[in-house]
């Protein structure tokens, strides 16, 4: 062949020509050498080869008897997790996984609060079509509540096809199971997952959100706990029962519920009133930097103050209910329907307006937009439970106004409270 006219210089390496030496007369030497290699393999193959550095020895794994070791990161089909103690499912049906799933095989419906008909952060019906799922692991990655994880179970073959559309009952696994199969991965996300679970449990009316197979068990435990509570009736009104099973602390008396609702509605009204932002239609559009939400920085501070005022009002009104409604419009906020405020809680609304004015005054004075309240995006976009984000020193005034508003609200509340 003519010298190839395509000289290309190679940085950090040289062009090596493969030695063909095809002109040498071959007399069967190569054949014998090949046979020697195969003979060595035959001889060695009576030993097992399970290590990475061995190239001889039988490497077949006799499957049913001898199972291959599955690494921790192994992902097959998604499963839902529920907490062993409380029996609550971690999933709050935020639809993130349904949206990210490339083959769109996850289908879910949000649970409704039977009494008020409003949606509750729990999932009613959750279906995954196992036959179309390609176990890519996206759902496990995007889930903000670590509710859906990838399982290690791969013997899923069935002869009847309908079984492959898996419903919530078959999908649920206890957290202990997942901790066993993926210890380090669960350890990383354990605290945040459980904390969020507590947050969600508080906002789930009685039975909703319980792992179905545990409902009778939980009902029984609740009955027995209620009995204990009855004997200890004389005790001072139980401080917000952090330690005892939060399940029973969660039972709101009807009037508490009304108060809570009012507070939320007030915050809603305040929010709707001032901020010119278009109504937050969907509870949380996935795009953390929603193009539409270019709210001018000034009114953001106002909204902040309003929210803080609502918190204070609610805390004061609800008395022992520890949970504060999630102020920030984070993904999991229950959708607050802007229904008309009932006359009885005008006071709360008044306090909220006053707080808003104070915040506006403060906002007008201080530096440009404080950083968006919640760290949008990132893997777990979760709203801090209640502590207002550490506003940079420059908007101290805003905080001052908030505190003043809070006192005003408390004074107002204690005035007409019982």
């Amino acid at each position, binding site marked *: 062949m003519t010298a190839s006219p395509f000289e*290309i210089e190679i940085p950090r390496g040289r062009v*090596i020509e*493969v030695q063909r030496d095809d002109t040498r007369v071959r007399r069967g030497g*190569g*054949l014998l050498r090949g046979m020697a290699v195969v003979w060595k393999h035959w001889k060695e193959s009576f030993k097992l080869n399970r290590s990475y550095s061995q*190239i001889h020895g039988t490497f077949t794994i006799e499957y049913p008897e001898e199972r291959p070791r599955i690494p921790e990161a*192994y992902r097959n089909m998604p499963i839902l997790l529920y907490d062993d103690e409380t029996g609550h499912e971690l999933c709050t049906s935020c639809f993130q996984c349904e949206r990210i799933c490339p083959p769109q095989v996850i289908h879910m419906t949000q649970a409704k609060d039977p009494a008020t008909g409003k949606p509750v952060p729990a999932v009613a019906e959750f279906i995954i079509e196992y036959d179309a799922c390609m176990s890519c692991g*996206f759902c496990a*990655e995007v889930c903000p509540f670590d509710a859906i994880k*990838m399982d290690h179970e791969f013997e899923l073959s069935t002869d009847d096809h309908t079984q492959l559309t898996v419903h919530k009952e078959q999908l649920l696994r206890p957290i202990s199971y997942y901790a066993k199969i993926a210890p380090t991965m669960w350890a990383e996300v354990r605290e945040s997952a459980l904390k969020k679970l507590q947050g969600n449990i508080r906002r789930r009316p009685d039975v909703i959100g319980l792992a179905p197979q545990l409902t009778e068990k939980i009902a029984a435990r609740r009955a027995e706990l209620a009995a204990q509570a009855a004997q200890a009736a004389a005790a001072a009104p139980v401080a917000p029962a952090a330690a005892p099973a939060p399940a029973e602390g969660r039972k709101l008396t009807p009037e508490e519920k009304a108060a809570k609702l009012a507070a939320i509605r007030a915050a809603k009204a305040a929010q709707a009133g001032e901020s010119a932002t278009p109504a937050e239609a969907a509870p949380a559009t996935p795009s953390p930097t929603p193009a539409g939400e270019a709210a001018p920085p000034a009114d953001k501070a106002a909204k902040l103050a309003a929210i803080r005022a609502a918190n204070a009002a609610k805390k004061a009104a609800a008395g022992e209910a520890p949970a504060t409604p999630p102020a920030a419009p984070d993904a999991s906020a229950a959708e607050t329907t802007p229904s008309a405020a009932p006359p009885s809680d005008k006071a709360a609304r008044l306090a909220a307006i006053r707080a808003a004015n104070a915040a506006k005054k403060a906002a007008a004075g201080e530096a440009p937009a404080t950083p968006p309240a919640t760290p949008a995006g990132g893997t777990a976009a979760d709203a801090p439970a209640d502590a207002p984000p550490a506003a940079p020193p420059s908007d101290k005034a805003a905080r001052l106004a908030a505190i003043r508003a809070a006192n005003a609200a408390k004074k107002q509340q204690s005035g007409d409270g019982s």
Partner: protein
Amino acid sequence: MLQTQELQVNIGPQHPSTHGVFRMLVTVDGETVVDLKPVFGYLHRNHEQIAEANSYLQNMPYTDRLDYFNSMANNHAYAMAVERLAGIEVPERAEYIRVLMVELTRILNHASAVGFMINDMGAWQTPLAFGMREREKILDLFEMASGARLMCNYFRFGGVVRDLPPEFIPNLRELLRALPAYIDELERLLRDNEILLQRAIGIGILPPEVALSYGVSGPVLRGSGIPYDVRKAEPYSVYDRFDFDVPVGKVGDVYDRFLVRIEEMRQSKRIIEQVLEQLPDAKGGHINPKARQNVRPPVGDAYARIESPKGELGFYLVSDGSTRPYRYKVRAPSFINLTPLADMCRGYKVADIVVILGSIDIVMGEVDR
């Protein structure tokens, strides 16, 4: 006197030795091939149309299914294309992990490609079994890191899903100890085996100028004597920090391509050793924290190409500012390496067609998309 008319032989889609569903309509005169018409499209899954309906991240698992032998290489090309489009930069450690994974795929691809080619020549799966054993070890490593053996879906825009598990590096070092022994043994078994020489030397010659005019790439191009390797021509990611050689053939026949692939396995091992030396520690982070889950790149287009084991794999993306690519095009090396098949097979025997096809090493997933 002895009139032999030309025979239309159909080496059909379900023929045992066409890699996947690929048909060749061969006009044969006696034993010699007069003309060959490749027919493919049997595995067309409308990949690029689906990609336009998915968001950028949702496409990542689909790229595993392009060249289902090297899912890591496909991921790498796609991730680079989107990063170039959206302007996301990748931390050091992630770049090194990516190079490590792609070089491991190159080894497993060449090990099985050589195995399949010799298998088409008739050696009853012995070299293939040796290749598959090494491939199993590498797939176990992938399973440790990404969670799946074949459909790894390991790369994200701005890094990789998960950092390497603690037991990954020790196992890899052990594997690197076994690799040279495997490659030498493969050479001892096959390199100057008289029967293989007869079946490979002077068969399926692709002269350099014809290879250039067809635009083939990868071991097929280097087998014809042109030292073009994307990792050297346009060093992407951190390839400019490693020194490795580019093996090149002389004549451009099946034997050259076979030797080039074996030599490339050695070079990949060299690269992996250098990666292990220079691997930055964890503080660099395996993913860029600011990289968004759902990318919404600005309007514009980008083309990223890597040296996948089969050749130059490129992704061309056009973004209209929304979360879904406006246009998504894959430059598949197998598809382009397949085009000179008719010229390469003309004049050789029927038994050689299958060996020449094996030496080009195609995967139908990538050809048909």
